[in-house]
């Protein structure tokens, strides 16, 4: 295994603020991993994402201490546009990250900035559109498609730059559950089939916990818990911090305290729990 993101004793404070938003974070993410970061609002997870491509400290200024190494690059020594080739960021609000008047032009935006030749660009754009499942929308205006589709355009537009890492900051909070699931499916496929390292920031663990075996819980600028979600979601500390435990996991825990044990690993999805219950009740 090879580390693709390495943070070492990271402390970051936004300009004009006294309290650091990231307060002593050390973290290693391996190449090809699907990492889920969660934690209450204001816990520093968004700031952490911004350090991955250098938005912190280049765009936001402020004071950064510690080491950030992403895809072999020392982020503080590189410009954000250098990092953009390695790390793609997808933000929460789909509306504010699309600026062109046609979908394919939006997807090409980053490549145009890199000065890529038209032929190569065409290939990359079509490839990214297909992977995100929006090839049919390529001539539409990003403004007139649904929120779920807009978010897929945003994914395609970072994908086109063929980054090793894609970081998504609460990409589905404006979407309905079915569109959200479709987005997660797209991301999971990118991780599995293209080997892209995924860092996903989410509150909705009920929809996402099943995709990962590396869950990070943050609170007050620190990493509090890190490891397999099956362990972490059972940990009392997780509930204390205020992380929403998926209902299936919660039900499993409740049953267990009542002496009804299925003696299996903690379920992360309704399917897993249903199977365990079926087996236990049919015994």
């Amino acid at each position, binding site marked *: 295994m090879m580390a693709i993101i390495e943070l070492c004793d990271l402390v970051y404070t936004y300009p004009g603020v006294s309290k650091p938003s990231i307060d002593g974070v050390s973290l290693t993410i391996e190449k090809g991993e699907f990492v889920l970061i969660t934690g209450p609002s204001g816990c520093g997870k968004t700031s952490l994402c911004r350090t991955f491509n250098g938005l912190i400290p280049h765009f936001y200024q402020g004071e950064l201490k510690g080491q950030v190494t992403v895809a072999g690059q020392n982020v503080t020594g590189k410009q*954000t*546009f250098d990092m*953009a080739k390695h790390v793609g960021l997808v*933000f929460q*609000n789909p509306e*504010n990250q699309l*600026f062109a008047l046609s979908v394919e032009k939006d997807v090409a935006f980053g490549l145009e*900035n890199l000065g890529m030749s038209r032929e190569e660009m065409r290939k990359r754009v079509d490839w990214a559109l297909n992977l995100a499942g929006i090839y049919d929308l390529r001539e539409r*205006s990003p403004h007139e498609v649904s929120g779920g589709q807009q978010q897929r355009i945003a994914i395609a537009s970072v994908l086109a730059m063929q980054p090793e890492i894609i970081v998504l900051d609460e990409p589905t909070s404006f979407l309905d559950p079915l569109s959200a699931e479709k987005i997660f499916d797209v991301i999971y496929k990118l991780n599995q089939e293209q080997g892209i390292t995924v860092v996903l920031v989410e509150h909705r663990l009920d929809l996402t916990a099943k995709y990962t075996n590396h869950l990070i819980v943050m609170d007050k600028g620190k990493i509090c818990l890190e490891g397999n979600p099956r362990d972490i979601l059972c940990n009392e500390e997780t509930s204390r911090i205020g992380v929403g435990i998926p209902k299936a996991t919660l039900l499993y825990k409740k049953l267990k305290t009542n002496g009804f044990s299925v003696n299996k690993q903690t379920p992360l999805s309704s399917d897993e729990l249903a199977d365990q219950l079926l087996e236990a009740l049919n015994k």
Partner: protein
Amino acid sequence: MSFFDGLKFRKVSSPIHNLDPRIKFIYVIAIFIIAIVFPQMLPLIILFLIQLPFVVLAKIKKQWIRSLRGAAFFAGFIFIINILTTFFYNDFTLTALNVENALAMTMRFVVLFESFSIFFLTTSSDHLGLAFEQSHVPYEFAFAFTTAVRFVPVLAEEAQTIMDAQKARGLELEKGNLLKRIRNYIPILIPLIVSAIRRSLELAEAMESRAWGAVKKRTNLYLLRLHKGDYILLGITILLMVVAIYVSFFVSIPLISDLLNPSVL
């Protein structure tokens, strides 16, 4: 708002839509100049008729007619003002020539509107932005243009939501004297400005994350290349100009009122 409808781009595929916006713009300017140069009715009618095939080719008959209907009000206004001024100026008499001149003025407006309408109905703002980019306008300007076009409807929608939110808190915009009425808009303007700033920050963040400013000379997914149609339109434009120049120097243009009056001939 049928008048503005006539200037709103609709996505259709036609030979006219596919023309290079730069050439289309040159054509519109040529028509503009010719229409200004000739004050007579006859050439203006011809100019009007010449453009009809474009409307048919572009498959925009319906919108175009709607836009003309919208412009009819302004046309009528121009006609009446012209008639009235000549009427009062000539001691309350009117000749056929006066009417024809007023009609020509009106026709000029119609021709100008007709060609602008064809241009905007068949040119997407995307295409227009591209034309800017490739006419050596600095990219920042072209980008500002397309971004503005992209976000105007978003901001308009947002303004509506803000207005609803404040009305729901008992704000009555139409209440009070003039000063009070202006002050009533503060609760709408502040959230709108704050959100526009927030939006632009997020936008900047997204642009940075997509390698904005990586190389000095950025490339473009689309290339505007002149096709056969563009050369044909350019030919037509040059021909029109040449004919117009020739006619204005060497041909005396008959009045319609004379043509209709056989006794003069």
